[in-house]
């Protein structure tokens, strides 16, 4: 009986390991390939990206783990020599940073309201936020486009930043976190004569510091990865973020694209390594649309 148990667990472990390899491989390959020289990339993947600019091209595709010669030349080209990629990276940062900061800030205040006071009107509004949160881009982009057009901010980064700030996702999640703060804490502060704003900044915010962090990570990764909004709201190629621009690889620059793809995943991977526990907690708490 016990032997069978061990066998089962061993099989389970191997299965997990196999899954783990599949989940990790694409990311790891992108990173290792970014250290290859352009000629090596060309030799390996020339068949796919059909570069005709000379050099040796292998007849078959060689997906390689470890570069023959590790070189940083792609990074040097991408980050120092050609400003184009760097500009797109700045675009990404300038779009995403304000969205993350202000979405969380606006949400914190709103979540306090939903936590502190209940009532028919307010739960109606909250329910409406949940519905709005569940709407796909295909529904929300048309309204966003119309408003941007009226306000004259179409084709500027405001067209993406402003709707991003007011997206209801973090209001929903933060409310769920805040409702767990014991009510006695708030009562005690009230007895001590604290005003609402003081209760909010001195008690609620410190209590859900980790929640704020986990929500910021979730919002960050969502917008760092955006494709739909810039395609419609930012028609100008120069103002596109790197998440869209990376796919317009010039056929001669695949190696460079690998390097920039790696650069682009560094911020989110760093956040992941640092805040995984918070992230997991954040996801786990988003786990129910009810209550």
């Amino acid at each position, binding site marked *: 009986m016990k032997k069978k148990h061990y066998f089962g667990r061993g099989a389970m472990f191997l299965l997990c390991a196999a899954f783990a390899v599949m989940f990790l491989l694409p990311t790891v390959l992108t990173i290792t390939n970014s250290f290859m020289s352009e000629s090596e990339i060309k030799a390996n993947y020339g068949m796919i990206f059909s570069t005709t600019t000379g050099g040796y091209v292998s007849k078959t595709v060689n997906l390689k783990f470890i570069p023959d010669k590790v070189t940083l030349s792609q990074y040097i080209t991408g980050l120092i020599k050609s400003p184009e990629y760097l500009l797109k990276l700045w675009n990404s940062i300038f779009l995403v940073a304000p969205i993350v900061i202000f979405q969380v800030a606006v949400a914190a205040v709103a979540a306090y309201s939903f936590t502190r006071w209940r009532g028919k009107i307010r739960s109606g509004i909250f329910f409406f936020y949940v519905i709005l949160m569940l709407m796909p*881009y295909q529904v929300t982009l048309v309204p966003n486009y119309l408003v941007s057009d009226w306000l004259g901010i179409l084709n500027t980064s405001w067209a993406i930043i402003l709707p991003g700030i007011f997206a209801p996702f973090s209001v929903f999640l933060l409310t769920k976190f805040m409702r767990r703060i014991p009510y006695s804490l708030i009562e005690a502060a009230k007895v001590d004569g604290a005003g609402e704003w003081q209760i909010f900044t001195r008690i609620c915010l410190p209590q859900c510091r980790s929640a704020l962090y986990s929500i910021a990570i979730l919002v960050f990764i969502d917008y760092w990865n955006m494709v739909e909004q810039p395609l419609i709201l930012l028609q100008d190629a120069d103002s596109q973020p790197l998440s869209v621009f990376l796919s317009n690889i010039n056929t001669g620059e695949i190696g460079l694209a690998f390097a920039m793809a790696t650069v682009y995943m560094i911020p989110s991977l760093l956040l992941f390594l640092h805040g995984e526990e918070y992230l*997991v907690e954040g996801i786990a708490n988003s786990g129910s*649309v009810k209550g």
Partner: protein
Amino acid sequence: MKKQKLNLQERTLDLLKSLCFLFPSLLGVGVFFIVPFGVVVYYSLIDGVGSKNFVFLENFIKLFDNSAFLMAAKNTLSFSVVAVPLAVILAMCLALMLECRIPMKSQFRTFFLSPMMVPVASVVLIWQVLFNFNGTINEFLMVFGVDKIDWLQSDYCQIVVIILFLWKNLGYNMILFMAGLANIPKELLEVADVEGAGEIYKFFAIKLRYLSPTVLFVTILSLINSFKVFREVYLLTGDYPYEKLYMLQHFMNNTFRSLDYQKLSAAAVIMAIVMVVLIALLFIAEDWFGKDVEG
């Protein structure tokens, strides 16, 4: 009498205070989502932004005659119908696997979750290398004597997109299921163990019951994310992919280019209605399935 009056005053004061805190968010949501959506509904019912004649359902009827829309809707639907249940079931399997006592559990969790943090644009290159006609997967299959498959330019593309979708979303869903599993009362499982219940019985009779709110949420979430698979498709194959990969978002993008407000509005309204109906149905199903469990 006096007390009641004070109460009323207090309640109005509370409402005012709560609205103060809610104001920034409500203002933004109103300006960027609610008001323009009202206009979208209005646009979907008139014949042109200039002429403003009320035509009721004509735009919707036209939309259902539009072959591009029908194709996009069909493709999106057939993708979601397969991808969403897979995303739910496989994620649940992963969570159950990690529940067993195996070594390196937390590392596995990290590994499974990591694709979520990788921007689609970053891994697209590797997907191209893998799924190209001369790519690695075909090379690998050739060893077993399988003919080359043109993954992205044939009906196999749907399989590719489902794989990419699962790769990205399984980790997130798995975390939700792990949280759901952690909420099942331990005593209940212990009692079942004492009574000699098998693993399979325990799963169906106890765990699945308690997981039903999680299943509901993961299904809704996967449904929403299944509309985002456009990202992968667009970054891999551009504006006009193989016709089986022409998604609703492609249709919207291409309609935006001609700025046909009537078509866009009608499509957005239909999508909104479909989403609300689907979510309501899922809620009803969950209510019915999990009614005898006190959450």
